[in-house]
């Protein structure tokens, strides 16, 4: 975003229908085509993996990605809960409808039009009735400077999301406590989250903020280090420890359990050290658009 744009105080109008159309496209793109960052990470893992079986399965995943893209079949039958991040420039005005409804309509149409699986159930602790259109999407909004609207979607399957972990450590447990907690989470998750994983880690803030940081860290390009060298060092140490676990591709044993570790940190209360782990499977479906 250029400085010139940021300095304008003029309100920019965005039509709600533009948001819906962008979401429809993102749902399709995310579910049929793995991003270049994810493909490159899987290729690198295949080159480095010591297990012959692991290398073969990583090859299957690359073949699956090529086929899904070519034949317009979902990369995975679990097309996920649709997590939508909206970064809304403070000079944006949404016209012609309600923003959240526009997002939900995009998910509804995106999942219906392209034969994606609808996986959301209402009454989750009792009747579990499928809402039939994959709504509601989980929407996170953030107000940022500027006059653009950035939309990022991530399709999150149950296999990986079910392995999320959270704890508030004692401040005395420090860096080592954080590393051990994350490594244990990946170890215990084993094959279930479909490794090789992208490991999202949120440190600090409050309970809900730590988990949001962990989830948001996943939408960085795979393997891009945190800009803070101290956090980047932590990511590297966790990655080495996780890959020494031996879990491997699909949990069948191997030298690569994670493609990358992404961590985000922020200040916390003097009495707290929150740490959250949100895992993403190898089929890391994340896409973004800017309106």
């Amino acid at each position, binding site marked *: 975003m250029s400085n010139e744009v940021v300095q304008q105080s003029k309100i920019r109008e965005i039509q709600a229908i533009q948001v819906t159309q962008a979401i429809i496209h993102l749902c399709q793109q995310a579910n049929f085509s793995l991003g270049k960052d994810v493909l490159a990470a899987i290729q690198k893992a295949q080159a480095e993996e*010591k*297990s012959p*079986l692991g290398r*073969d*399965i990583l*090859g*299957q*995943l690359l*073949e*699956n990605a090529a*086929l*899904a893209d070519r*034949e*317009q*079949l*979902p*990369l*995975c*039958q*679990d*097309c996920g809960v649709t997590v939508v991040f909206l970064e809304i420039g403070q000079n944006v005005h949404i016209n012609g409808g309600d923003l959240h409804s526009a997002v939900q309509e995009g998910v509804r149409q995106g999942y219906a039009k*392209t*034969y*994606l*699986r*609808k*996986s959301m159930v209402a009454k989750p602790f009792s009747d*579990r009735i*499928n809402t*039939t259109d994959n709504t509601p999407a989980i929407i996170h909004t953030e107000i940022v400077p500027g006059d653009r609207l950035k939309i990022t979607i991530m399709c999150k399957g*149950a*296999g990986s999301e*079910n392995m999320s972990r959270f704890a508030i450590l004692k401040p005395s447990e420090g860096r080592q406590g954080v590393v051990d907690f994350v*490594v244990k989470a990946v*170890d215990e998750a*084993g*094959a*279930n989250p*479909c490794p090789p994983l992208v490991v999202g880690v949120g440190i600090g803030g409050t309970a809900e903020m730590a988990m949001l940081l962990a989830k948001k860290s996943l939408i960085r390009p795979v393997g891009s280090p945190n800009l803070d060298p101290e956090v980047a060092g932590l990511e590297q140490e966790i990655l080495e*420890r996780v890959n*020494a*676990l*031996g*879990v*491997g591709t*699909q*949990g*069948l*044993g*191997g*030298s690569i359990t994670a493609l990358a570790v992404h961590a985000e940190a922020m200040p916390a209360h003097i009495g707290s050290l929150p740490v959250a782990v949100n895992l993403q*499977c*190898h*089929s890391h479906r994340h896409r973004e658009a800017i309106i």
Partner: protein
Amino acid sequence: MTIEKTETINITSPLDIETVEKLHAGDRVLLSGVIYVARDAAHKRLVHALDQGEELPFDPKGQTLYYMGPSPAPPGRKIGSVGPTTSTRMDSYTPRLLAAGVRAMIGKGSRSAEVRESIKEYKAVYFVATGGAGALLHRTIKNVEPVAYEDLGAEAVLRLLVEDFPLIVANDIYGGDVFEQGRAEYRRGGN
């Protein structure tokens, strides 16, 4: 398919005990024949039917269950993407179904100690398919028939005819466990 045919064992479902006896954790298998799709909600209903003394919507003897909920069939196709779901959610139902005659299961991820014991007791086998390869596995599906619980949508019971469906034996009748074996081989110091 990247798995080389020379290293694989070809089997046909429904499976007999003799076939199951030949399988060991870590073996690569190409499975052809009939398999039944059932996941969370269908398992709940199947076990409820057994509890009520009712007949199951299919004869489970010697059959293979696939823990899977497909994506919808696009026009001109029989089914969408068809990869496995996490098996451990079915663990609490599995011993009952093995006792009723089910001989094989396909899913992803490890099983509970109770399920592993049941696999030995009833001479069954648990296979894993590659999670997140649903478009690739789509190619092995030759026919799709609805069997029961169509109101469950993606969780309905289906009968699939498959050809050369690529699998790995995860738990065998001898107590072998591919996850434990694999992890032991590649785990490095400190952890």
